[in-house]
């Protein structure tokens, strides 16, 4: 099995976040935290992304966008909800336009709590996501192999 966990590319989407978590996400890439040590690249392109990093709650307008981005990402993929708003809806939970956390529209794998989430915990979340990404990839490979066997 190839070690594909060495190359996790992120797609960062800002739901209805207050930008606090987004700034912390970007802080992960700065010299102090340098997430690129793990091969992390912040790509703006869902076609090329492996890990979907979502900040902020889901509202009625961005629900479709989040679904669309998730569907555009090729398998294997992992979703990380960063910050309490993306986890549950946070302080905006009872707003008329907020549906809740990211898991109201797409399956979320890793929850990173905090308001705003600290860079340390975001990186911890990414490291866990990377392990899951490797596991999913191995499962994906097995599935493909079995399919190939059935076909032949």
């Amino acid at each position, binding site marked *: 099995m190839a070690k*594909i966990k060495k190359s996790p590319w992120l797609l960062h989407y800002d739901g209805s976040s207050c930008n606090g978590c987004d700034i912390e996400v970007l802080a992960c890439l700065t010299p102090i935290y340098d997430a*690129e040590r*793990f*091969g992390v690249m912040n790509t703006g392109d869902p076609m*090329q992304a*492996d890990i979907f990093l979502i900040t902020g709650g889901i509202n009625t307008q961005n629900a479709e966008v989040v679904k669309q981005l998730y569907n555009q990402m090729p398998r294997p993929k992992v979703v990380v909800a960063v910050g309490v708003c993306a986890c549950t809806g946070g302080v905006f939970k009872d707003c008329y336009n907020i549906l809740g956390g990211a898991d109201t529209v797409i399956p979320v794998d890793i929850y990173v709590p905090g308001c705003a989430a600290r860079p340390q915990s975001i990186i911890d979340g990414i490291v866990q996501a990377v392990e899951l990404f490797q596991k999913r990839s191995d499962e*994906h490979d097995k599935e493909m192999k079995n399919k190939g066997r059935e076909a032949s």
Partner: protein
Amino acid sequence: MDYKTSIFVVCYILFAPLIGGLLQGIDRKISARMQRRVGPPLLQPFYDVIKLFKKQVIAVTPSQGFLLLTYFVLMVLTGAMFFAGSDILLCFFVLSTAATFLYFAAVVSSSPYATVGSMRELIQMLAYEPAVLLTCVGFYLAEGTFNVDEIVRSDTSAIRYLPGFFVAFVFILTIKMRKSPFDTSTSHHMHQEIVKGITTEMGAQNLALFQITEWYETVFLMGVVGLFVINSNPISIVVAIAVVLAVYFLEILIDNSSARVKWNLMVKSSWLVTIFAAGVNLLVLMLVYKR
């Protein structure tokens, strides 16, 4: 094709992606150190490509894979012809054809970002093509031949007659290698106005193929830089490798110390440098040296 030439060609086809990938790894490491970061492992580009091959393939249009494959084959052909010692003019014509297929591969996706990226790719070709063609002419005037194997066997290094052409070529190398400030058609960094530009709709193995083609291209372009230096003296090969590494480092330095410019400044500056550096050099060669 004799025995020795075929060894060169086989070596290029086998080792160019390894050297290109390693150079990119060094590039990312040095860039990170310049920004006071630790940076990714040296072999990161290979990890990326291996991962891309293992991802699910979502093709926007089926023709994209074929067009990218053509881009790849033509790029390998360019380098193979160059290292086989054939006509340098022909190498650059095949290279331009390859670049055209990359344009088509991006534009068939009909994504607005990829389309804007591919339009900019065409403008980039417009910006670097004069310098590339003049470089070929320069080699002819200096050495009396377009053939790479004869240029390599000459008594003196071509750069002795072609310093202006060298400057112009290194200048447009920044465009060719997709480095800032001329990385208008695609960006290696996130959150920019055209997402990933020309590669926006390429995912999984298509992007991997694009990446490997870029490695082949890097090695070919570095070969051309080396051609300025290499002569019949074996020591010149060592000097050529040193010059290639120095030029590569210079590109990394420029990449990290400049912001992206608009396309009109890119065309203007590259044409000005071409006219003043290569053009003056050309006149000197023709009028003073009477070649």
